[in-house]
């Protein structure tokens, strides 16, 4: 004691007795905690002088004092800082009691400000524990008050409610910073008090450089078994937990589960105690199973997802459970175990027969993963919270892999498939290096005999998918196939991905699948389109993206955000379901990039198509990309168009330049688009696009100017578009061959001779008349067909069936359920008609 005063703080004789026991405590701890600092006890001391309230004291005590004299020199500064915090905290507590949230809020801000000032000190000493306790309690109170408030008949006044709400936000954000400390506190809040009150000597914790999971477990055991204090139950009675009554207590907890007035926190506390006491594998497994379920039982607050610290607890316990099961091969947790009569006895494996315990690890895994996704769906993706949360994915992935190993040992096919699917869904959308990094990370988290880190994402995805193809249900097979396709497309293997798509005949049945699978299908399709684009296959890319990007409902089709419809007819329920379907942000396909790719493809196909109408007026009806046309029309109707700003403007400007055959300008505009940088090797992409623009520019030029020339030199064409003579010739030859251009090449002089037909007025009219007559007959036929539905139906099917069989069949996609279906149907109807008409002409 004297040492304490010797340090120069010569005040507070009156409070001396209050903390005398604490001092002994601190002294005893000094020997063990060498790196901790003294500041807390000092601040307590100051606190004691100023406020001197024991109640407060209990909460603010700390076990990390030290006797380091050198630090002590700066003590007064620290004291001042912490004193400020202490005051704020006290005021905050008072405010909570009287439900005055305005004052709570101001005090909270004050405390935080003070805390920030004390950053330097905190860096040395760690965050003061009293603060942790205060904020942890505060969060709970806020939560409970909010809950009460919801059901309360009388609302609180506006400013108070507002303060409460903002408090909720603040505290949530704030507490995430101290997540670990709070967890520690929450693990046994009573201990904080108990320790101090009873002045128990706590043995030093020995950090064991062992496996994370195990050391955690042992730490708890070591600490709590050794000190041998008696925890105090709810009613202040002493509750004994020991081997004998373990099962009884456990049963009590199990029975109380789900009942109305059960205090869940209390339950968790009991279970945690039980876990400490349990020392046979059977007991531990039983307790852990219940403990995990209890974690999931906690009510989900307003946030819409499980509290993250609870989630982490659940994950930790699940890891413990798996560790126990791994080291004790004779215990098996599985579903549908016949109920044992004597539940209250410890069971040991007898004559090599394994002990079966009722429980479902796969359900835990499912729940854990779902809660993780939910939290990501709800956290704002642009905050650091999201990133922090995302970091947990590694450990989640590790648990999944670990459980997979367990199921493999049990040979439980269904569970294996479910877990494999989960694992696949964590992997398939990631680029190779990320997957390898995660694999290596989990290798360090798990025992070596469970995981062999995969060096290559492709082989990993392949293995997972093949497992599912072999054993999975049809839905799982479909999903695995789609994930596989997605991954192939991501890794730029267009042909493999496309062949898988075609060979699996997925597109014939996808509109019957559930919506989530359809979304996955859309994702795979979009990725395939992007892959085709990267490979420079513009036409393929366009046909892949057409059905998704052309609809204007991209967000909805990819589940990447709710599309804001003007006349939203969706009921709140539907909206809620839709919200649940959303993919977390990190899985998103960049929509702006997608649009950019789609429009660029459209431009390269549509501009020559539009130009060709100058020669073949029949082409006017042929529209390749409707949204693009609409945009172009809108853009050209503008009286004044400024320099392009966004991606769309750039593409429109490029399109206009291309239509005027100013390919350099067009290339400039296209390369100016910033979003290309998101594609790896964007330079190559730009080069490829430049080349395509040159070619299409040449075609456009020929189409639009053919009428005004009687011959053009190939060389000058080549020069004009900066193409080699060979390429130019080949492009022109192709146009001549497929009769897009009525021209021929004079090989001797190397010029393109364009053939013109000068029509007399009579001839033009005759042609127009023939056209009209044909149209008339056609519309008559259509009319009849609509009136006799079955006939039309039959002929439609016939033509389509024969078309679909074709080897080079285009991918025809269905998008969303019934809607996509009917639309497809109409298209096919038209196609069928077109065929019959053409057939008739021949």
């Amino acid at each position: 004691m004297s040492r304490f005063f010797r340090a120069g703080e010569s005040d507070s004789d009156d409070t001396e007795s209050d903390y005398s026991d604490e001092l002994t405590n601190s002294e005893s701890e000094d020997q063990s905690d060498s790196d901790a600092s003294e500041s807390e006890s000092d601040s307590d001391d100051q606190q004691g002088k100023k406020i001197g309230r024991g109640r407060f004291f209990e909460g603010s005590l700390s076990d990390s004092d030290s006797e380091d004299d050198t630090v002590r020199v700066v003590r007064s500064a620290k004291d001042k800082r912490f004193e400020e915090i202490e005051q704020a905290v006290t005021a905050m507590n008072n405010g909570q009691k009287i439900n005055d949230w305005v004052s709570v809020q101001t005090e909270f801000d004050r405390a935080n400000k003070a805390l920030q000032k004390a950053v330097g000190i905190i860096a040395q000493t760690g965050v003061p524990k009293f603060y942790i306790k205060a904020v942890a309690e505060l969060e709970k109170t806020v939560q409970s008050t909010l809950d009460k408030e919801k059901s309360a008949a009388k609302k609180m006044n506006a400013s108070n409610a507002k303060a409460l709400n903002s408090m909720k936000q603040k505290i949530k954000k704030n507490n995430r910073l101290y997540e670990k400390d709070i967890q520690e506190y929450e693990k046994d809040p009573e201990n904080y008090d108990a320790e101090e009150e009873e002045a128990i000597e706590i043995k030093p914790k020995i950090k064991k450089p062992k496996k994370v999971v195990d050391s955690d477990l042992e730490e708890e055991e070591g600490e709590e078994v050794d000190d041998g204090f008696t925890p105090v139950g709810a009613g202040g009675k002493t509750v004994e937990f020991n081997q004998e009554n373990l099962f009884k207590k456990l049963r009590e907890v199990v029975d109380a589960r789900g009942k109305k007035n059960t205090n869940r926190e209390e339950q968790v506390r009991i279970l945690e105690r039980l876990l400490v006491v349990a020392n046979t594998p059977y007991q531990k497994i039983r307790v852990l199973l219940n403990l995990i379920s209890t974690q999931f039982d906690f009510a989900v607050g307003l946030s819409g997802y499980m509290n993250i610290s609870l989630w982490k607890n659940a994950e930790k316990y699940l890891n413990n459970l798996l560790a126990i099961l791994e080291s004790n091969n004779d215990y098996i947790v599985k579903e549908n175990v016949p109920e044992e009569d004597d539940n209250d006895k410890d069971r040991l494996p007898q004559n090599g027969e394994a002990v079966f315990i009722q429980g479902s690890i796969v359900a835990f895994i499912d729940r854990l993963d779902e809660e993780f996704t939910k939290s990501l769906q709800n956290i704002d993706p642009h905050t650091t919270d999201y990133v922090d949360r995302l970091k947990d994915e590694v450990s989640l992935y590790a648990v999944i892999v670990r459980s997979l190993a367990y199921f493999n040992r049990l040979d439980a096919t269904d569970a294996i498939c479910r877990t494999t699917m989960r694992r696949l869904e964590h992997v398939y959308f990631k680029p190779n290096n990320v997957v390898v990094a995660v694999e290596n990370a989990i290798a360090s988290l798990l025992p070596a005999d469970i995981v062999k880190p995969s060096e290559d994402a492709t082989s990993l995805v392949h293995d997972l998918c093949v497992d599912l193809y072999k054993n999975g249900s049809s839905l799982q097979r479909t999903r695995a196939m789609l994930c596989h396709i997605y991954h192939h497309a991501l890794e730029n293997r267009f042909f493999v991905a496309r062949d898988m798509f075609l060979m699996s005949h997925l597109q014939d049945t996808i509109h019957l699948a559930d919506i989530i699978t359809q979304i996955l299908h859309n994702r795979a399709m979009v990725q395939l389109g992007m892959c085709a684009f990267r490979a420079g296959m513009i036409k393929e890319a366009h046909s892949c993206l057409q059905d998704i990007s052309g609809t204007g409902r991209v967000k909805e089709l990819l589940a990447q955000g709710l599309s804001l419809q003007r006349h939203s007819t969706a009921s709140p329920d539907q909206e809620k379901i839709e919200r649940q379907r959303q993919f977390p942000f990190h899985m998103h396909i960049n929509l702006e990039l997608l649009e950019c790719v789609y429009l660029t493809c459209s431009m390269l196909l549509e501009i020559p198509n539009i130009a060709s109408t100058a020669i073949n007026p029949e082409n006017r009806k042929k529209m390749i990309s409707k949204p693009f046309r609409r945009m172009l029309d809108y853009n050209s109707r503008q009286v004044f168009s400024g320099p392009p700003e966004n991606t769309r403007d750039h593409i429109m400007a490029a399109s206009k330049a291309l239509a005027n055959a100013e390919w350099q300008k067009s290339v400039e505009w296209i390369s100016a688009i910033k979003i290309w940088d998101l594609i790896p090797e964007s330079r190559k992409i730009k080069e490829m696009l430049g080349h395509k623009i040159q070619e299409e520019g040449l075609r456009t030029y020929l189409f639009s100017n053919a009428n005004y020339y009687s011959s053009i030199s190939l060389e000058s064409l080549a020069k004009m578009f900066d193409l080699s003579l060979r390429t130019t010739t080949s492009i022109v030859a192709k146009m001549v061959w497929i009769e897009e251009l009525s021209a021929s090449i004079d090989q001797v002089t190397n010029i393109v001779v364009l053939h013109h037909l000068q029509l007399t007025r009579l001839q033009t009219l005759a042609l127009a008349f023939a056209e009209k007559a044909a149209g008339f007959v056609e519309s008559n036929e259509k009319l009849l067909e609509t009136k006799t539905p079955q006939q039309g139906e039959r002929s439609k099917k016939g033509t389509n069936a024969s078309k679909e069989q074709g080897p080079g069949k285009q991918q025809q996609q269905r998008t969303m359920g019934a809607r996509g279906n009917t639309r497809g149907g109409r298209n096919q109807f038209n196609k069928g008609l077109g065929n019959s008409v053409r057939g008739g002409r021949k």
Partner: protein
Amino acid sequence: MTYDLTSRMIPFLDLHLVFPLLEFLLIEELYTPVTLLEARYELAKKTNMIDFIEKLDDDLKDAGVIPAGGDLIKRREDILEQLQNAQFEAQKVMDVIENPDVIAALRQDKLQNLQFLKDNYGMTPEMIQTLYTLGQFQYSCGNYGGAADMLYHYRVLSTDDNLNLSALWGKLASEILVGNWEVAYEAIQELKETIDKTHFPSPLHQLEQRTWFIHWSLFVFFNHPKGGDALVDLFFQPAYINTIQTSCPWILRYLTAAVITNRRRKNLLKDLVKVIEHESYQYRDPVTEFVEALYINFDFDLAKQKLIECEKVLEGDFFLVSIQEEFIQNARCFVSETYCRIHQKIDIAELSQTLNMSKEDGEKWIVNLIRDTRVDAKIDYQENTVLMNTNTTSVYQQIIERTKGLSFRSQVLATSIDKREAAQAKAIAHEKNHPSSEAA
């Protein structure tokens, strides 16, 4: 060498069918003789052609390689004994079958026949089985004629679908190896029907069967006079073109060759181009690249280059060597036709060069081309050029084309309206006459 398909095709061929391929390679000297000898020896060891094995054994020893074979003399004895046993067993059946009375009594219905044979001659299914065993054994010994015979008899009698299919395969192989193309051609048709009709346990199984079938049929198609047509017809069927695309894209070479040599099926070229373009990432060789250069890239220089390469590839291909000349001729035709259609004025020297011909030959060639085909062109001797007359369709032609179908279509329309009216009238009349039926 790089375009040799033998190694790719062997997995889909029967042991015995590989021998002709290897012998061909020996003549072409693409590989060293010793390697081939060893390969043949390895193959032969698995068969029962003991004389052949001995010969190869000796050859190998001459070549300085000690073959790792077992005791050939003992094996010969074994084989002879087995053969005798099998023959003895089968003879019993053959005696019955060859009896003129029996032949007269046999009907179309297999079950009835079996019953008849069982009742009158005590023949059991097991006995019929011996025919199959003997056939297989004879085939294995290299006695293909005998094997074909036995398997024919077996197929007439047996009702076992699975073995029947195997017997059919065996018969096809035997006929191919004997060189009996007419019969083999029939066997091909029969086998195709069976494969298409049979319900295999899985689509994969059927795919496998089709892949085998495609490979085996090459032997027949390139030797039978009608083979070219049949090949094109068969391979362009959706099921088979899909098989080619999925499991054996190298067959595209044969398909391409067949299409190009088949002058009458020009319209198939479009389909072929589509398939080749589609599969170009999986398989390419000078033959497909020639088509690609000509019809996808319209690069005549490249086509010319590829044509030279084609010559070599075809020379080294067991199946195509016989049609090499024809292929080159036709390919030139295709090139010049395409060339003429795209160009208006062509320098004869240039064109001859594109076709790998001397100037005189080229001129002759073009004259022939103009005479034989519909190409409308004239040679300008002074300038040494060919002038193509562009044949744009006249406006009148266009109008005729457009209005051609109209009256017919209107007629169809009118009749269908009539029909509909009549049907409606009938329905109304029916309702009037039987109002009670509706009520009831």
